[in-house]
């Protein structure tokens, strides 16, 4: 009688342990999925913010000399210029001058940026920003 009771108790204990184990597995799986999903939501938010910033960028560009460009920020976000893209109007060839470090242009400010390489003044010049926009010199869209 005592053995039967012990056996039954043991069976119940094993069953309970199995149920707890299955429950813990389910909780772990759900927690993993929720953590991944939260990270995904964060990435979507970051991408949305980036696209919003991209739309808000507006720069004016002038090229006073072949070694210098003047960039004015008329947008509502600070822009970071990563390089200058120039097109020869005669043969349509291009030249890309990448900056060593992005040049920041604050809202409503004008910056004179020294170019690491000379860009001929007659060329169509545009500045490439970190948000993937390109702004061309005035009158050269």
């Amino acid at each position, binding site marked *: 009688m005592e*053995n*039967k009771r*012990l*056996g039954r108790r*043991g*069976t119940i204990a*094993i*069953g309970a*342990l*199995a149920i707890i*184990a*299955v429950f813990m*597995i*389910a909780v772990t*799986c759900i927690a*993993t*999925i929720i953590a*991944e*999903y939260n*990270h*995904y939501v964060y*990435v*979507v938010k970051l*991408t949305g913010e*980036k*696209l919003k910033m*991209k739309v808000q960028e507006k720069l004016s560009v002038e090229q006073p000399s072949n070694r210098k460009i003047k960039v004015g920020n008329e947008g509502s976000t600070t822009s970071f210029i*990563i*390089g200058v*893209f120039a*097109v020869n109007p005669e043969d*349509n060839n*291009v030249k*890309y001058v*990448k900056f060593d470090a992005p040049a920041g242009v604050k809202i409503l400010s004008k910056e004179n940026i020294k170019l690491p390489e000379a860009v001929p003044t007659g060329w169509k010049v*545009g500045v*490439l920003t*970190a*948000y*993937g*926009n*390109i702004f061309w010199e005035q009158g050269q869209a």
Partner: protein
Amino acid sequence: MRGRRGVSEVLGAIVIAILVLGMSVSYVLLEMDRAGSETYSVVDLIRGAEKQQKQLLSLIYYRMQGGRLILYIYNYGEEPSTPQRIMTDKEVPLSLVSMENMDTGDMISSIPPKTLVELTMPAPSADSLTLVMVTEEGGVFSWKISV
């Protein structure tokens, strides 16, 4: 007689306990395996979608030269983008497409993050079209082009 019954009762309890234990362990292991593989497939889907979100390409300039269309694409995202399909007025075979990293001058097959690339392909026959690029990472980009 009483002693024999006692032994068989103990044996029976042990056999039942072993059976229950074995079945429980098998069930838990099976459930762990099933739940694990299902969780990994969901996590893979989420990570794929995350990768897709991190892909951001911008067409900054394009030109025609000697029967070729040359595109300048900047990757301002955080993931590399590998073109898988390019469609203009027809699908462009990838064997006819070449890409050059504008920072280093190297020929590449994938557009690294924060990099400007020059993508060269055969010129389309239409003057005005929408170029669609599908990447291996699941991104789809389209740009209107007038040549």
